[in-house]
């Protein structure tokens, strides 16, 4: 913490900010301030208004009420460009990169260094980019196309963008959603460096461990209002969670299921090969079991799931589902065999944004409502209404659209879809990403109920507390291979991280035991 922290003035102060959207009051007279040289956490459930607040600070939204005071002066941003010029930089969760342009061009987007006669000086751009990347201690070819980089590298490019200008306020929106482990550590180092140099950093995350690790103060938002701002040192996890949601941590996870006695596995994967991402994976999944598949982003976990479901081709390996060969599946065949898959990207790959909830829920099982090719719409709607009630989805009705739902409710719609579609095995990829704590709790208990009913559930997740809290057995992947299996009491976060980052080449001296 920088020495002058206590006296440093507020870099940004929001007073009485309100923002309305049709039908929803996203921000309700919020007061918020952050100081220079601090890392200030912004915490809240999804739908609490964090994203709206950030976009208002960044000039992407204009507040309907209230004032923004930046560096002592009242400001009104007419565009994000203006806010940028003033020294505010936001790194959004959806990385705003241009995959066809180079690293250097992305870093200097809209702001390219000019040479003679005002024309873009490519040489200066490349060397400028190199300088910034060196400052960050991250090696990247400034000429490489951003589309070819790993997600972690892409995030570094985003951070580099922030350093091209005299950034006074840096906002990071859930940066560790897509990176973990060592890369996250690097990120936190950068944040500390920036803090030391007087930059104000606003950090948004769902992960309480990180907030306690890196931040100085925390502000909690709930339902568009500010619940309060506290010093990190004077607060504990449970209090924070209670501020956010009115529930304590201990109530989040249902009592873990006892380990399953050995029985014939529901799903058997042997030597799955999908080079270069998956290089020989084998495991079993039993009825009534919640199996966790942990690992860093890019370890190849989602690919395994896609191969089992049939939405990605595998090169070789055998898959057995309920004793029958399931080797060259199509999604249709998988669904018919009782296998379901809730993918990672719910907005891009899961939800049918243009259709209503009933259509979304019935999508894989349309056949159940079809006779002689004709659809029984009333039955479909009634069935959807039942699911909505069962999963407590906050939606006006089964014929309402899904686009405007919160992340948690959208995820519940997908849950409803897959719980009715599959009766054997359900694969969940990041089931609570972008989901508020309240909905998380409900989803965890749904998963629990599914296993209790005899399904085999495979949970792919990068959130350690989730894996540890839910799963009775955990397998860990690293760079395409399984590095280990943990069960019962051995399931803890240090062990999982050790396996997730375990070096695979004996000669590499970086690995610490």
């Amino acid at each position, binding site marked *: 913490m920088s020495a002058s922290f206590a006296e440093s003035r507020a870099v940004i102060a929001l007073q009485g900010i309100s923002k309305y959207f049709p039908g929803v009051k996203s921000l309700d007279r919020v007061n918020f301030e952050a100081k220079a040289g601090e890392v200030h956490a912004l915490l809240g459930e999804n739908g609490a208004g964090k994203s709206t607040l950030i976009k208002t600070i960044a000039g992407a939204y204009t507040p309907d009420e209230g004032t923004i005071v930046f560096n002592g002066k009242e400001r009104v941003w007419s565009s994000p460009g203006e806010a940028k010029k003033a020294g505010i930089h936001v790194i959004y969760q959806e990385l705003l990169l241009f995959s066809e342009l180079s690293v250097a061009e992305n870093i200097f987007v809209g702001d390219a260094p000019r040479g003679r006669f005002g024309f873009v000086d490519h040489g200066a751009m490349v060397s400028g980019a190199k300088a910034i990347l060196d400052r960050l201690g991250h090696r990247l070819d400034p000429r490489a196309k951003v589309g070819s980089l790993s997600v972690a590298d892409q995030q570094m490019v985003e951070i580099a963008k922030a350093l091209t200008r005299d950034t006074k306020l840096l906002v990071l929106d859930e940066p560790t959603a897509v990176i973990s482990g060592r890369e996250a550590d690097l990120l936190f180092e950068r944040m500390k460096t920036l803090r030391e140099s007087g930059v104000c950093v606003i950090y948004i995350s769902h992960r309480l461990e990180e907030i306690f690790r890196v931040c100085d103060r925390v502000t909690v938002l709930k339902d568009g209002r500010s619940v309060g701002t506290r010093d990190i040192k004077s607060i504990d996890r449970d209090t924070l969670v209670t501020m956010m949601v009115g529930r304590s941590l201990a109530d989040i996870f249902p009592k873990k299921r006892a380990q399953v006695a050995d029985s014939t596995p529901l799903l058997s994967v042997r030597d799955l090969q999908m080079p270069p991402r998956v290089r020989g994976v084998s495991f079993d999944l039993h009825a009534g079991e919640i199996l966790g598949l942990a690992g860093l982003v890019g370890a190849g976990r989602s690919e395994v799931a896609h191969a089992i*479901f049939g*939405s990605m081709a595998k090169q070789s390996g055998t898959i057995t589902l309920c004793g029958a060969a399931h080797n060259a599946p*199509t*999604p*249709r065949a*998988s*669904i*018919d065999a009782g296998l379901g*898959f809730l*993918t990672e990207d719910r907005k*891009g*790959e*899961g*939800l*049918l*944004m*243009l*259709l*209503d909830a009933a*259509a979304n829920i019935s*999508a*894989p099982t*349309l*056949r159940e*409502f*079809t006779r002689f*090719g*004709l*659809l029984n*719409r*009333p039955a479909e*709607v*009634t069935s959807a*209404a039942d699911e909505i009630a069962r999963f407590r989805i906050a939606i006006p*009705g*089964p*014929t*309402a*659209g899904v*686009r405007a739902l919160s992340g948690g409710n959208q995820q519940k719609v997908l849950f409803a*879809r897959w719980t009715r579609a599959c009766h054997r095995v359900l694969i969940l990829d990041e089931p609570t990403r972008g989901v508020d704590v309240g909905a998380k709790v409900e989803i965890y208990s749904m998963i629990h109920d599914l296993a209790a009913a005899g399904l085999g559930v495979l949970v792919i997740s990068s959130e350690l507390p989730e894996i540890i809290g839910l799963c009775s057995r955990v397998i860990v992947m690293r760079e395409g291979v399984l590095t280990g299996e943990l069960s019962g009491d051995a399931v803890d976060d240090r062990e999982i991280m050790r396996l997730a980052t375990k070096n695979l080449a004996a000669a590499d001296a970086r690995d610490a035991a």
Partner: protein
Amino acid sequence: MIGIRRHSLAPMRSGSLKRFALSGFLIALMATATALQPSFLSVSNFQNILTQAAPLLIVVLGQAIVILARGLDLSVASLMATMAVVATAFNATEDSMIPIIVAAVVALSAIVGFANGLLVTKRKVSPFIATLAMMIVLQGVRFAYTKGAPAGSLPAGFRYLGTGKFAGVPVNLLAFILLFALLSLALNKSALGRSVYIVGGNPRAAELVGIRSDRVTILCYIACSIMAGLGGLFLVGYVGTVDNWVGRGYELDSIVAAVIGGVSLAGGAGTLSGAAAGGLILVLLFNIVVILGLPVQAQLVIKGVIIVSAAALFVQGQRRAT
């Protein structure tokens, strides 16, 4: 309480607003036309207009389906003309040949549609380019065959199909109504129709719920081409002559009609009835131009203004190029 309203798939509010606006506009148009020409509001005039519109409306049905599936078909006009030429190639004069000719046209159109669909799904060519290329190819084939001047003959029965009446209703209009009913049923009440909307809205998500996106898309292109082929036959029946340019301009007109009717170019949203209403609006506008005594080129101007205004009114979804 669950309110099971009409079987619409799009989020409630925008769907009914669009419908309301369309019908309102249609009524306003008819009122204007009647004001300009009192004889407009007569049964015979309506019959004339609808007979004239029927071939376009048939083509519009097909185009709307393809657009719903996130595609586009620029080859429809060229296909219409090519099928007209195919029909005359039979050199038939007996009405008993008509079913055979129609069957041949349907079959060939289906093949063209299949080719379009294959290009778009398996070779991942953009629909704009694929169907544009197909349009050119069909044009070449047709001109090469006719050597610039179509010959051959058509059974007189086609004139009846194009201009005749059955129980007081124009035959081609009946045909349109029949096709509309069939396709509407398929689109709105069948699982296949639901798949079209799902694929059009998000092809990847469709795959992940077990729908064969490729198959559905190809079927849509086939349907569109068949409609174009049939439309070509009816148009020839209406006009009475066959040349190399039958249906010229119908490809853009059918897209315009669909857009006016609320079918989103981004795919997955819109209805056949909307598209048909759009087609009707277009034809009515053309008619008003004629009633007003304006030169026929004025239709182009009006068409342009209408399509932009209609689209602005409905504010189509995403803004991505074709």
